[in-house]
């Protein structure tokens, strides 16, 4: 008993240690996932070497949502690693592109020099009266509402713009609901997909929003790693050694295996038995009936 207790006592610190490690690992893991929401870890993360992202993590990096009515300028404009870029829109009628809102994001540089954006925030400018009129006109014409973003967020002057459009009638619900998906590659914007939040039914009905404010949903997307059953060969070996046995179907019962033979056989046997039973009966009946048949013949003789 005592010996067992001692061993338990010895196990306890080990367990504690182990749980500590486990919790540490868990903390690290959560750190990886929480990176984007956690402001305080920005600095430390930049210095640490990035671990390869597990392929299972979703591509969504940041989803920030802000009503344009109550926005103040996003915090952190003074920080050096914050970048800002403007979203411009074209309300048709030959007005050309005008600033419509601004994105602010934190620039994160990894150890080997590549830079990525995190913590994207979007602020929509309020629509002026002219713009509202122009938007109404777009709705009437069932025309396109086009937005654009600079293709390089660090140096907006150098590169081209990325455009995206949608039929204006897709946007209004109660307010103007928009859904912006930005596809990034480092600090370059590859593409922006501008759309409505829900579906956009066809044919498109004309609908004027009750509130002229934008409800914006933004998503930052980066590329997925292509799946390739990576440890494929290992898996095969695994299957051959251990797993294969488990996968074997359980032995079927005798009845389950051979019912298709047993039933016909039984039927045949039954048939044979009844037939066999019938034959003596028939013979007996024949013998029994013969005197009876003879009887009527005999009867007239009695007459």
């Amino acid at each position, binding site marked *: 008993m005592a010996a067992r207790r001692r061993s338990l006592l010895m196990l306890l610190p080990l367990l504690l240690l182990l749980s500590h490690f486990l919790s540490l690992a868990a903390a690290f893991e959560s750190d990886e996932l929480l990176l984007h929401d956690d402001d305080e870890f920005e600095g430390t993360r930049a210095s640490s070497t990035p671990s390869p992202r597990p392929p299972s993590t979703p591509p969504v990096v940041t989803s920030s949502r802000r009503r344009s009515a109550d926005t103040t300028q996003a915090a952190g404009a003074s920080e050096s690693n914050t970048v800002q870029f403007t979203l411009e829109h074209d309300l048709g009628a030959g007005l050309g592109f005008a600033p419509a809102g601004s994105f602010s994001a934190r620039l994160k540089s990894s150890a080997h020099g590549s830079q990525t954006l995190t913590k994207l925030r979007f602020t929509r400018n309020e629509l002026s009266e002219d713009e509202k009129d122009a938007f109404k006109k777009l709705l009437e014409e069932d025309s396109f509402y086009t937005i654009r973003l600079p293709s390089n967020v660090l140096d907006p002057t150098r590169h081209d713009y990325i455009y995206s459009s949608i039929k204006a009638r897709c946007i209004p619900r109660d307010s103007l609901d928009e859904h912006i998906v930005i596809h990034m590659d480092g600090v370059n914007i590859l593409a922006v997909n501008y759309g409505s939040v829900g579906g956009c039914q066809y044919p498109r009905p004309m609908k004027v929003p009750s509130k002229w404010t934008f409800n914006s949903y933004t998503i930052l997307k980066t590329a997925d790693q*292509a799946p390739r059953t990576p440890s494929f060969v290992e898996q095969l070996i695994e299957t051959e050694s251990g797993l294969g046995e488990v996968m074997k179907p359980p032995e079927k019962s005798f009845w389950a295996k051979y019912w298709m033979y047993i039933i016909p056989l039984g039927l045949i046997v039954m048939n044979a038995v009844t037939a066999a039973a019938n034959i003596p009966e028939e013979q007996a009946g024949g013998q029994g009936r013969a005197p009876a048949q003879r009887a009527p013949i005999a009867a007239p003789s009695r007459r």
Partner: protein
Amino acid sequence: MALPPRQLLLVLLGFLVAVSLATLAAAVYADQVGLADWHQKYIGKVKQAVYHTQKSGRRRVVVLTEENVIASLDLRSGDIFWRHVIEKNNPIDQLSLSAGKYVVTLSSGGSILRAWNLPDGQMVWETNIQTSSASKSLLHVLSNSKVVQDNLVLVLAGQWIYAISSIDGLISWGKEFTLDGLEIKQVVQSPENDIVYVVGIAGSSKLAVYQLNAKTGEIVKDAQESLPDGLCGEMLLGSSNVLVALDETRSALFIVEFKGESISYNKVQISEFVQDFSGMVKLLPLMSNGIIALQSSSTVSLLKLKGMNGLEVIHSFDRPASVSDALTITEKDEAFAIVQHVGSQIEFIVKVTSDLTNEIIREKVDIDQHRGSVEKVFLNNYVRTDKSHGFRALVVMEDHSLLLIQQGAVVWSREDGLASIVDVMASELPVEKDGVSVADVEHNLFEWLKGHVLKLKGTLMLASVDELAAIQALRVRSSEKNKMTRDHNGFRKLLIVLTKAGKVIALHTGDGRIIWSNLLPSLRASKSGEMPSALRIYQWQVPHHRVMRENPSILVVGRSGASSVAPGVLCILDSYSGEELNSQRFDHSVAQIIPLILKDSSEQRLHLIVDSNSNAHLYPRSPDALNSFMTEMSNQYFYSVDIQKNAIRGYSLQKSCDFDSGDTYCFSTRLLWSIIFPSDAERISVSETRKMNEVVHTQAKIIADQDVMYKYLSKSLIFVATVSPKAAGEIGSAAPEEASLMAYLIDAVSGRILHRMTHHGAQGPVHSVVSENWVVYHYFNLRAHRFEIAVIEIYDQSRADNKDVLKLILGKHNLSAPMTSYSRPEVMVKSQSYFFTHSVKAMAVTQTAKGITSKQLLIGTIGDQVLALDKRFLDPRRSVNPTQQEKEEGIIPLTDYLPIIPQSYVTHSLQVEALRGIVSIPAKLESTTLVFTYGVDLFYTRLAPSRTYDSLTDEFSYALLLITIVALVAALFVTWIWSEKKELRDKWR
């Protein structure tokens, strides 16, 4: 007497087994080759021809073509003895014969010299030569002289000259000329001694002449002279120390004479002696006895040198005309040929240089009108039966065909334009007519009688050779697969191909014979020298309903020049006869052609042609077409892939053009979306969409656990693959860390990126194919050092709720809701990649009439064969241990490699040299698809990806079936009689 019933049953059983076995056979048996398929060999447009001058043996000519083929042809029949198709990245510049038994070729800018054995085409040796720069190289074979034992081959490239032994390819000597910037232009061997004259230009105006000892390479003499004006580089060196060179402006000639170390020259204006010369002047490579040929834009002139003072025009031919090289016939004399057009014929004239006024041969040759004008002539002589000199010539025509002319007739012709197919489409054959007119019957009766008499003669062995050929032709024409009418299964079609030369050729799918051909006049080179280029071929009108009686027509679009901003050209041809119905020259360029699904009232297919200014033009230009287009205009979108700027842009159409409001058929475009790939990280490698005419049978896919997945079927799905710039080069040029391949699925209407995926350590070249809801692409995996094929399947999640039967019955589903690209799609993407052994030249997918038959990928392998790979092997849902249900569904256990089953080569043992494209055309029979593969060769076959489940095979013995039925009926009668008899007997008892 009939067989007893039990034996009959056995026969029937055996027969059934045989039939079921026959349908099981998937691959082609050796004796079935050629039944449904055909293979044609071509060589391409000949750019150089060298005759085998050996007195004995078979007459041959060795040719070098623009398709980078060297081939040995039989001069009597035009058949190929042997042929080598060299890769395009190793272009062959020149060809020559050496020592009467080797063919020597110089390739890759003078850096590789190869010798091939003349009789069988085996490579004898190969020598790599160090050359200074990628300048124009020259090959010169020293003629058999007494002093030099080895037959030396001189290679001149830039400042270098090499002499190489043609026996073993060893470099005998090499010499670099010290003069800066020297480029060797000409080399001539002195006939008397072992002196080789080498002429080069340094800079633009300095002329240098060297005399070398052919044996050792020592410079015996050299002389240099600066000319007052620059030279354009074209020059001719006569053996008699005279050089004729064109100046920079191409309007004057320098006549240069070098005596010893002094050079004297004289400049002669061409306009002084040639009347009305204009345009580009070229010196033709003809020089002997002081005769040169000069080609201007309208004429070809023969000039004779009169010492240093000037030239004299002896003859002048209107172009198109062509002059051959000089051919030595006697010690002193050389002959050359001129071919010119006289009306519809061509005239073949042979002259000797010593007496230009005299003509040895002047023959008129009838020629097919659809061959265009003469481009090149290669003269050859032979000894006639009366010991006099006879001449024949190979003529290269504008449509790239090759003809042999001898004794005033075309001996044979090769349609080598088919080696450079640009685009392919299939067209239906005419329907078999029911009602036949009386005249037709009479004519047919006579023909029929004649045919039968011929056949009778043939069976009685009385037929002559010609008659035998006629019988054979009759048989071919009447055989089922070669008929000129539509068949029930849709196997007989016309393959209409557009070649690089601007010729449209219709091939019959039965045996590949040419039904008609037409060299389009609007795609022919004009005299001003612009070279039109053929672009695409489309279906223009398919008669249906109201216009059933009209013939279908096709649309050919081209450019009137080589540059992409050159005005476009449009031609409409009748697809039964090849006649040109209409041709038009656009006033705008052609950047993109978009065939629409709309048709006007005369069933003409509407086409949008986008020019380089992003304006769209509607064709046909009829109010009717405009009306039907205007209603659909708001739903028309298109996209463009700009490889230079690394961007993809989407557009919609707007009412009218900006510049020309009067043109109602012109629409301006509006940029809707753009995707710009960062040029420092990605470069567009390939973009691919679904085929316009693809038919999808079912929207849904039922998976193992009775669940339904809806395919994301959008016609506007684009697959784009980009590679990192470092990995854009050849395989091995980038390390795995710096190489990556990105795969994108993009919706072309909204510009939405539906899926984006990175393959690390992968690089191009990428080949891809998009069909239904999947993409298959092929690339190289640098980490695994292997090729890979990856598959992406995309499913629509927004329709995933439509599984409830009750909902379906009550109509509460969104299956019939119109699809709009403006809704945010909820898609699910599955992907997987597999190793693949081969590198790939082209990829396609089989297409069937209704899309029910399972698909096969057609992969053009590096060995120029076509492999049919079941799509089931490229299923992203394959797992290592599929469950029982999944197995039932047909999921194959996951493997690392895609299997290559030798029987699944569509081309069986044949090779389609320099394979470029694979086209799959649906037949009317659902199980079967027609596959046409083109490169330098053509190959056609029928393919049944899921076997011919809807028809009996060709080998099915209808006779046996008939016999069986007859026998059965007979047996029935016999047994009935028997039973009657037996009954009668019983009754009598």
